[in-house]
C-alpha cells in the first residue's frame, strides 16, 4: 500500500485551474522530490496534502485513509516551511514542544523527544532557551526540522526549505536532510526548484510543469531519458541545446535547420519528413577541427574543473562544456561535434514528447 496517493487531484481558484488531475503514488519511507518552475503547482500540491489548501477535485490519501476533509492536525504530517515559520515569541524549546503540548504529552516525554531531536540535529543544547531571532539562518532551519522530527509524523513535507540559506549552508543542510531521511526512514515529500537538490536528494523525481506531471522517475533516469522536451530543458544546468530539424527520407538522419546532418539513434522507427526538436547536452559536445556545427564564440566561463563555451550562429546559441580551461576568445570561430557514443534526444515538435525509448546513442 502506498504511503501517499494522489488520485486525479485538481485545484482551481475560481475558473483558474492550477492543477489538472495529478496521479501519483509515494511509497512508504520514500524520499520523493517534486521539482518544477515557479507557478507549476508544486507548492499547491504539497499544501493540499498538508491540508492548508482545499482539494477542488479528486482524492488524496495518507496511509490508505482519504484525508480530503481532514484538518491538518488530523493528517499526521509535519511540515518545514521556506521561511522556517518559527514562533518568534517562544523559546526554541517551546517551539519544538508546541505541537506535543497540544497533544497533551507528558512533560517528561516531551523533554525526552526534544533531547533526542537535539542530538540528531547536533544542536547546541544551550540554544534551547533562546528565541528564534537570536539564531542564524542555518540554526533556524535546524530548529524547524527539529519541530517536525519531535512529532514523529508519518509524513515529512518540505517546502523549498533551503532557498533562504546561503550557498555553503545549503550544501551542508542538503547533506543533513539526506542523512536525516536515512536515519529516520520517514516518507518525505520535498518541493524545490533547485536543480542540485532535485538531482541529489531524492530517490525519485517528479517534474511538474503548468499543473501537470511531466515525468516521474529516479533522477538519473530523468536526466538520461527525459520524457518531454520540457523535462529535457528543465533538468540539467546549463540547459540542453535544442535545434529544430526534419527526419530525412531514409529515416536514418535528421537534417537540422542549418543544413547539418546527424545520424539518428537506433531504437525507434522514424517517419520521414517529421518535424523534430533535437536536444544535445552541453557535456556531449566537443570542439573539433571539422564538425557539423560552425559557430562564433560569444564568451567562455572558466569554472575551474571545466569551462562553459557560449557560441552562436544564424540558427541560435549553443552551450558546450569543455574540459579544463579554454583559451578560446570571443569572436573566434569554433567547430563543434557531438561526442562519439554520446546521446542525442529527439522530441516531436508538435507533441513535445520523446520519440525513442533508448538512450539515443548516436552512431557517429
Amino acid at each position, binding site marked *: 500500500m502506498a504511503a501517499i496517493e494522489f488520485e486525479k487531484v485538481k485545484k482551481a481558484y475560481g475558473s483558474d485551474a492550477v492543477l489538472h488531475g495529478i496521479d501519483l503514488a509515494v511509497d512508504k519511507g520514500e524520499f520523493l522530490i517534486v521539482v518544477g518552475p515557479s507557478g507549476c503547482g508544486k507548492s499547491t500540491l504539497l499544501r493540499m496534502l498538508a491540508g492548508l489548501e482545499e482539494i477542488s477535485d479528486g482524492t488524496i490519501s495518507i496511509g490508505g485513509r482519504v484525508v480530503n476533509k481532514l484538518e491538518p492536525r488530523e493528517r499526521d*504530517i509535519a511540515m518545514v*516551511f521556506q521561511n522556517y*515559520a518559527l*514562533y*518568534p*515569541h517562544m523559546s526554541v524549546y517551546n517551539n519544538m514542544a*508546541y505541537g506535543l503540548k497540544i497533544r497533551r504529552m507528558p512533560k517528561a516525554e516531551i523533554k525526552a523527544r526534544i533531547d533526542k531531536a537535539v542530538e540528531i540535529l547536533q544542536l547546541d543544547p544551550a540554544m534551547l532557551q533562546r*528565541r528564534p531571532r537570536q539564531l542564524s539562518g542555518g540554526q533556524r532551519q535546524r530548529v524547524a526540522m527539529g519541530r517536525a522530527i519531535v512529532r514523529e509524523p508519518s509524513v515529512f513535507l518540505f517546502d523549498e526549505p533551503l532557498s533562504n540559506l546561503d550557498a555553503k549552508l545549503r550544501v551542508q543542510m542538503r547533506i543533513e536532510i539526506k542523512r536525516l531521511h536515512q536515519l529516520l526512514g520517514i516518507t518525505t515529500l520535498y518541493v524545490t526548484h533547485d536543480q542540485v537538490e532535485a538531482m541529489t536528494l531524492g530517490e525519485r523525481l517528479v517534474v511538474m510543469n503548468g499543473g501537470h506531471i511531466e515525468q516521474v522517475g529516479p533522477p538519473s533516469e530523468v536526466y538520461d531519458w527525459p520524457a518531454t522536451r520540457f523535462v529535457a530543458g528543465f533538468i540539467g544546468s546549463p540547459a540542453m541545446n535544442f535545434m529544430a530539424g526534419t527526419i530525412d527520407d531514409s529515416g536514418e538522419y535528421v537534417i537540422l535547420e542549418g543544413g547539418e546532418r546527424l545520424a539518428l539513434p537506433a531504437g525507434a522507427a522514424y517517419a520521414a519528413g517529421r518535424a523534430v526538436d533535437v536536444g544535445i547536452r552541453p557535456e556531449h559536445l566537443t570542439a573539433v577541427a571539422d564538425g557539423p556545427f560552425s559557430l562564433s564564440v560569444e564568451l567562455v566561463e572558466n569554472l575551474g574543473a571545466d569551462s562553459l563555451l557560449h557560441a552562436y550562429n544564424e540558427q541560435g546559441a549553443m552551450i558546450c562544456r569543455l574540459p579544463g580551461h579554454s583559451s578560446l576568445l570571443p569572436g573566434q570561430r569554433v567547430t563543434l561535434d557531438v561526442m562519439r557514443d554520446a546521446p542525442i534526444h529527439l522530441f516531436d515538435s508538435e507533441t513535445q514528447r520523446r520519440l525513442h525509448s533508448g538512450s539515443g546513442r548516436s552512431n557517429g
Partner: protein
Amino acid sequence: MIERRAVFSHRWLPIALVAPQLAVTAVFFLWPAYETVVSAFYVQGAFGGSEHFVGLHNFTALWDNASYLHSFGITLIFSAATTLLALSVSLLLAVNANRALRGAKVYQALLAWPYAVAPAIAGVLWLFMLNPSVGLLARALDGLGVPWDFRVNGTQAMVLVVMASAWRQIAYNFLFFLAALQSVPSSLIEAAAIDGAGPIRRFWTIVFPLLSPTTFFLLVIDLVYSFFETFGVIDTVTQGGPANATNILVYQVFETGFVGLDLGGSAAQSVVLMLFIIGLTVLQFRFIEGRVRY
C-alpha cells in the same frame, strides 16, 4: 552609512518649518500647564483680583474632600471599563475584518468612521438612542422589561457614558489591530495548524502574543483618552450625575473651577491628574521597552 536626515542649506528654513507647531504647543499646552501648576499653590478670590500663596494647602485639602476621593474611584472604574471595552470590541472586529474576503474594504472604511466623530457628538448620539422618553434603544429595553432611566440610575448612567466613550475609540483601535493582524505571517498560523492547534488556540497562543506591542500601545492611548478626552461625553450626557455617579476627575476639575469657582483647588486637581497620567504612561512605556520586540 547613508545620510538619512534631511539636510537644509539654510539655518532658518528648518526653524521656520517647525515654528508653527512649537508656537501652538507653547501657547495652548505649555503656558496653560505652567499657569495651572502655579495657581495650584494659590487661593484666589471667587470674583478675581485677590490671590494668596498657600503652599501645598490646595493639595492636602484634596485628601479631606470626600467628593474628590469619590471622583477618583469613579474615574478608575470608568477608565478601566472604557479601555477594556474599546480594546476587546475592536480586537473582535479586527479579527473578523481580517478574515473577511468580500467587502473587506467597505467594512474597514465604515468601521473607521466613528473616529471622525467628536466625543461630545458621540455622547449626544448615544443620548438620543438611549433617552428614556424618546430613545429607540431605551424603548427596546423597556419592551424587554428593563426599566431604563440613566437620569436616576447611577449604574445605567455609567454604562451609557462608557459605551459612548468607547464607541469612538473602537474605530481607532480597530485600524491599529487590523494592521497588526495583517502583519502576522500566514506561515506561522499554518505551522500552528499543522502542529495541531485549532483556530481558538492558534489565536491565543500565536496571534495574540504577536499583537502585544500593538495592544500595549493602544492601552496607553485609550487610558489617556478616557482620562482626558471624555469630558465632552460626560458634559453632554450626564453632567457627572446622577448623584455624582459619573463624575470623573476631568469633570470634577471643571466643576470645582468653573462651577465652584475654586480655581486653586481645580488647578491642584489638574496637577494630580497630570502626574497620575504621566506616571501611568512612563510605567507602561518602561514595561513595553522591557518586552522583546518581534
